[in-house]
């Protein structure tokens, strides 16, 4: 076949050429990075202060929760499932935190621990029902979204009570002060990079390779010894825990309301799709998914600067998700 540039046996000559391999990898998944760069430049042209350290860090800080959610969504998507429950899970986090902390700083850390456990438990439930009980994850997590929404409403009686403590809020708001040139390095940005790095390492490790192989071909993975149910459940757990982290950050940014997490599940999936993650599993990189989240946030910023109403955000997102999947389908057709 023409696609096989054949050496006598073993691998062709370009194996050693790491540079070229990197470039070709960039060409195949790199569209999103180019798009992100273009948007950054464009925004800077419209508003030159964007490129200054302060405003740029503010943008990263604003993006951090979505980037973290996108990483969570990636694990689930690449294994061939959906997690639609993360938005309402974020709301649960904020509402539960406010109610239990009641402004008392000493309760902050135990409550944070509890939130992470809640995230893991909800994720495990999603995973268990979707794999062992064979309910399609689209339905499981849609059901979970409704269950959590209802639970929040019932528990708060419509209006969230309580208050977050200052040290809880500082995670989303503050950072390391007194750094030259950028002045403050926000905790959320640090957390974002840490989670990003951890996600990349995880995807390179045995777990990640088994996860993506499961999403690509479940039967082949199982017959190779992969415990497919287990890796998929773990992906849901990761998604739940990362939703908890995002909830903690968002609690610091904004007020306590029953609306905090609304629609975030779709933002996260849009970000992944924008980054080239294929719905159905088996394709895409976690870095690209997170870059997709940064791109989405940049796009919202750009729309703002263009004076386009925030009300149109949903519409733009709809166009993006269809466009991105269409583009991917077109490219796959080209490759065939």
């Amino acid at each position, binding site marked *: 076949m023409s696609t096989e540039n054949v050496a006598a046996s073993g691998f062709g000559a370009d194996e050693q050429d790491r540079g070229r391999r990197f470039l070709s990898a960039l060409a195949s998944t790199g569209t999103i990075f180019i798009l992100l760069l273009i948007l950054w430049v464009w925004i800077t042209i419209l508003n030159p202060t964007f490129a200054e350290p302060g405003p740029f860090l503010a943008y990263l800080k604003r993006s951090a929760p979505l980037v973290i959610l996108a990483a969570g969504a990636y694990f689930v998507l690449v294994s061939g499932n959906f997690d639609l429950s993360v938005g309402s899970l974020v709301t649960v986090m904020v509402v539960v935190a406010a109610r239990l902390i009641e402004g008392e700083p000493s309760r902050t850390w135990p409550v944070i621990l509890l939130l992470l456990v809640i995230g893991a438990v909800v994720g495990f439930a999603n995973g268990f029902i979707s794999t062992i009980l064979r309910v399609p994850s689209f339905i499981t997590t849609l059901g979970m979204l409704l269950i959590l929404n209802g639970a929040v409403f019932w528990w708060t009686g419509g209006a969230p009570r309580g208050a977050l403590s200052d040290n809880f809020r500082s995670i989303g708001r503050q950072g390391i002060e007194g750094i030259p040139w950028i002045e403050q390095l926000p905790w959320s940005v640090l957390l974002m990079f840490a989670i990003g790095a951890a996600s990349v390492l995880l995807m390179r490790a045995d777990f990640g390779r*088994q996860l993506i192989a499961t999403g690509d071909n479940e039967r082949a993975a199982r017959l190779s010894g992969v415990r497919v149910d287990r890796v998929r459940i773990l992906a849901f757990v990761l998604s739940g825990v990362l939703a908890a982290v995002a909830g903690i950050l968002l609690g610091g940014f904004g007020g306590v309301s029953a609306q905090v997490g609304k629609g975030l599940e779709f933002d996260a999936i849009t970000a992944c799709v924008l980054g080239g993650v294929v719905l159905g599993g088996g394709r895409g990189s976690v870095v690209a998914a997170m870059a997709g989240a940064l791109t989405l946030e940049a796009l919202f910023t750009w729309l703002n600067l263009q004076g386009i109403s925030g009300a149109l955000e949903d519409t733009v997102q709809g166009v993006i998700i269809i466009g991105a999947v269409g583009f991917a389908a077109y490219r796959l057709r080209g490759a065939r």
Partner: protein
Amino acid sequence: MSEQTLLQMEGIRKSFVGVEVLHGVDLDLRAGEIHAIVGENGAGKSTLMKTLAGVHAPDEGTIRIDGQEVSFHHPAAAQAAGVGIVYQEFNLLPDRNVAENIFIGREPVRAGIVDRRKMERETAALLEEVGEASFGPRTPVRWLSVAQQQVVEIVKARSLNARILVLDEPTAALAEGEVELLFTLVRRLQELGVGVLYISHRLREVFALSDRITVIKDGGVVKTLNTAETNQRELVNLMVGRELDGYFPERGAKDDLGDVRLKVSGLSTALLRDVSFEVRAGEIVGLAGLQGSGRTEIARAVFGADPIADGTVEIDGKAKRFKHPRQAVKAGLGFITEDRKAEGLALAQSISDNMLLAVRTVMPSRKRRSTPGLMTVKELAEVTELRARGPEQEVRFLSGGNQQKVVLSKWLETQPGILIFDEPTRGIDVGAKAGIHDLIRKLAKDGVAVLMISSELPELIGMSDRILVMHEGVLAGELPGGASEPQIMELATGSAEVAA
């Protein structure tokens, strides 16, 4: 046989992204002729057929049907001109019945409503025309065997008035007994004046069926021969361009055999009844049988992929009952599945990820680093003589033979004591086949116990030290290596009175 030329293809050239894959191919087909096309994988057979079917437009060259020049820019145009193609993978809707599948998209209509009776009547007539009586127009396709589905595909092409019928590897998915039925059907079409282009890897079939043979190599025609005036050896030489001295590697000596590694006693599942056998270290045991006789079921049950109802499996003398393939992998088993794409490979992943998939499930990376004898991806590629661009290339871009080498590498890396091969060379070209045969024999020499399932009798006979034959879920008998094809077929069809 009529001498009227039905189809004439001249100087067909086709390039993809600047690489020419067909270099001016000439081919002709007479009415009522069975014309076989043989060649290694990637030789250009499929591309040539796709230019005829209107899937790819040729860059240069002419196609004439009944002397009229035609050019197809869409498969429907080729269909309308009387070209029918039955691909390896069928295009049938499993939940619709035979008549609905045959008339899909062009259902006869009366008063705005599909005229089911007419549809079924015409389907019945078509089935009768080809002598098919084992199912009717109303049978849901899901109920049909692979062979019967193939008949539906052929009848469907026929119902579109196909006078030129292309069969792409039609016997790849069939068992030995079903092949004869297909031959009968093809000969029937021949009598009706249909010209058949028959693509196959299996030379025996080509000799049994065809009138002429065209050998294609590297995108060009090597030669067109009258079947009666050539032989298998000449054909193989034309295909690969080299003398193949022995088809199969030499068997091991009797005293090379080691201890019993795999012992199966009284194995029963939903499909199997009381199957017992053993495989020793250094031994290749062939497993023969018709499609559906339970060969693959044995492999799956032993490997923990399907539940076992009764019986025991012993690995190296220890009784095991695997609930998940992972336990089997841990115990030193490897399973090269029949369907590479559906069960062997994660197609969108890299060569390296596929090669390491199994070992990753049973050995943590820390331990891998300190385990002696584990090969690197590069070494695996050399051992299996894989031909690819590099370890990061996605396996979907590899040819069938190279894909199979990746699957093999995956199992070599787990350092297995027992390997089960299910159709190890299905859909693989002649050159790569010999390489895989050599590798299987070499593994056995190194002390691996090999169980090899195959529908290709020459392969079974040439490779196996012993041959087990399955018939309807029961072990019908055992034959020594080098047994004859009729001996195997007698057992497989249940026509011999043999005590197992």
